[in-house]
């Protein structure tokens, strides 16, 4: 119980601090007055721009925490991360299309939809390829994912070279790939919250079978789990969660890898408590990282993925060192 209260409190604190942070720092009092309906311009900016952005960042982090937990559970590998099966490459390709190809649809709609479609489509392709080639086990899927990532990366590079000119800058593509939460309107934020809640529910349904799968494939099969089918379903579900995160926040590095580990230290490896705990950890990490991204170098904004990578790189090294020692 103490762990959950601490996590919830830490998230609340992170959200308050992040709501204060920006090029113009607000006091917690300003934030409270703005929420209470203060009509001043500063207060309206906080309510219309900063607070939705902070909450969106928290949701993106929660989705990455969920997705990472599912992928590590399915592949039973501590280095598994949500972008493993081509979803990063697919999302980046979709976003590149949305950003560089002039289409009749508004970009604010097109970007998340194409990023989502790219992320999920790439994972479905990877599963299809591994099934057709008969390599339905985890190793086969991982190899298919690596190949898919290479193909999609090359396609994206080609598109970037072919479609850019004086009027279309590559910088917008680059900054999207490096991750960054878009500021949503309140209705869109509501939609994001509903999608995130659905993702939590979806992954919780997988929790018990993820535990069983962790016993090893032989034992899981003898306990009545159809391993091949479950792995495929879990990967499909996990990649929906990741695709939603990517659609809202671009490619944010390391959060999906690190959150499940931190959560496991806090609540243990059973997936039913682990999934919500990992979502909370992810939410805290991205909320804080987004606040740093917005306020460290005013008036410029550092891409969110750079902030999480600078913090996540050392974490990754620490993780490897711990693993090598045990």
């Amino acid at each position, binding site marked *: 119980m103490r762990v959950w209260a601490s996590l919830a409190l830490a998230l609340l604190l992170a959200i308050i601090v992040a709501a204060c942070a920006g090029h113009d720092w607000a006091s917690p009092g300003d934030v409270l007055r703005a929420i209470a309906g203060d009509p001043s311009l500063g207060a309206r900016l906080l309510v219309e721009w900063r607070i939705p952005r902070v909450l969106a960042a928290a949701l993106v982090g929660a989705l990455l925490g969920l997705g990472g937990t599912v992928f590590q559970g399915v592949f039973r590998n501590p280095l598994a991360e949500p972008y493993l099966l081509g979803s990063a490459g697919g999302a980046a390709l979709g976003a590149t299309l949305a950003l560089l190809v002039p289409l009749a649809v508004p970009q604010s709609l097109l970007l998340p939809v194409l990023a989502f479609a790219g992320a999920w489509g790439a994972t479905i392709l990877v599963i299809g390829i591994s099934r057709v080639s008969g390599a339905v086990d985890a190793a086969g899927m991982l190899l298919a994912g690596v190949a898919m990532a290479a193909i999609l990366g090359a396609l994206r590079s080609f598109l970037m070279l072919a479609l850019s000119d004086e009027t279309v800058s590559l910088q917008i593509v680059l900054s999207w790939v490096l991750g960054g939460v878009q500021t949503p309107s309140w209705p869109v934020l509501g939609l994001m919250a509903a999608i995130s809640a659905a993702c939590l529910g979806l992954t919780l349904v997988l929790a018990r079978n993820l*535990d*069983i799968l962790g016993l*090893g494939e*032989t034992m899981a099969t*003898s*306990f*009545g789990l159809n391993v091949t089918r479950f792995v495929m379903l879990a990967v499909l579900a996990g990649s929906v969660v990741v695709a939603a995160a990517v659609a809202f926040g671009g490619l944010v590095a390391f959060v999906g890898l690190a959150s499940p580990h931190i959560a496991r230290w806090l609540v*243990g490896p*059973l997936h039913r408590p682990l999934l919500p705990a990992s979502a909370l950890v992810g939410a805290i990490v991205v909320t804080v990282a987004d606040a740093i991204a917005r306020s460290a170098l005013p008036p410029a904004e550092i891409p969110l993925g750079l902030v999480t990578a600078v913090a996540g790189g050392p974490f990754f090294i620490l993780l490897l060192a711990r693993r090598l020692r045990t």
Partner: protein
Amino acid sequence: MTALVADKLTVKRGNATLLDGLSLSLGPTGSIAVIGPNGAGKSTLLKVMAGIETPTSGRILLGDRDLASLSHAARAHALGFVPQHFDPHWDLSVGELVRLGAERGERVPQEAVDRTIAAFELSGLGHRRWSTLSGGERARVLLAMVLVVDPPVLLADEPAASLDIRHRLDVIQALAARGRDRLSIVVVHDLDLAFSFFDRIVLVDRGTVVADAPAQALLDDPQLDAVFGVRFERLQTDDGWLLRARL
């Protein structure tokens, strides 16, 4: 009543034939030791009979039903399988592991879980994590996980091979004792343990059953020497026979 029948099982993997038209018929109760040299097909036979691997041809009958027609859940409930190696990926506690075993059954009450934990002398270890357990404790946890739903058929692939003699006796005796009112099929490497604790011995070589007889009858069978490629001296002791192998 439950009976387990293997009907002309053949398992081929690539060029290798692991089981070669093997047939075996087992009643609803009894303790059966499966013995044979390395690579004879004992582990494959057990996995196929447990429904974990599908045979290239042939079928398994559980009672009057084809095992392949049963749902995964029904199969998991009827057939307990103890693998040769078990190493869970997540460092779960003893209580969590036994609970996971129980959840495959049809609503196993917590008191049944507690009873199983007590029966395997794990009562004080409920919160201990797998990584902190000794080999003997791990073997008992594994048996508790499999037996917590009290399956009518148990298939165990020499779960005691790496244990010291005291723990090995414990485990083998517990498995053989289940044969009094259930079906217990165990791959045993120590022939003396097989002959002293089990009713019936199935001798497997090159993917087929070479001999299938009560322990007493098989002891003098010269095929035993032929299959293992040694000459056994049968030594009489106060409570049975001992086998000593000579090249």
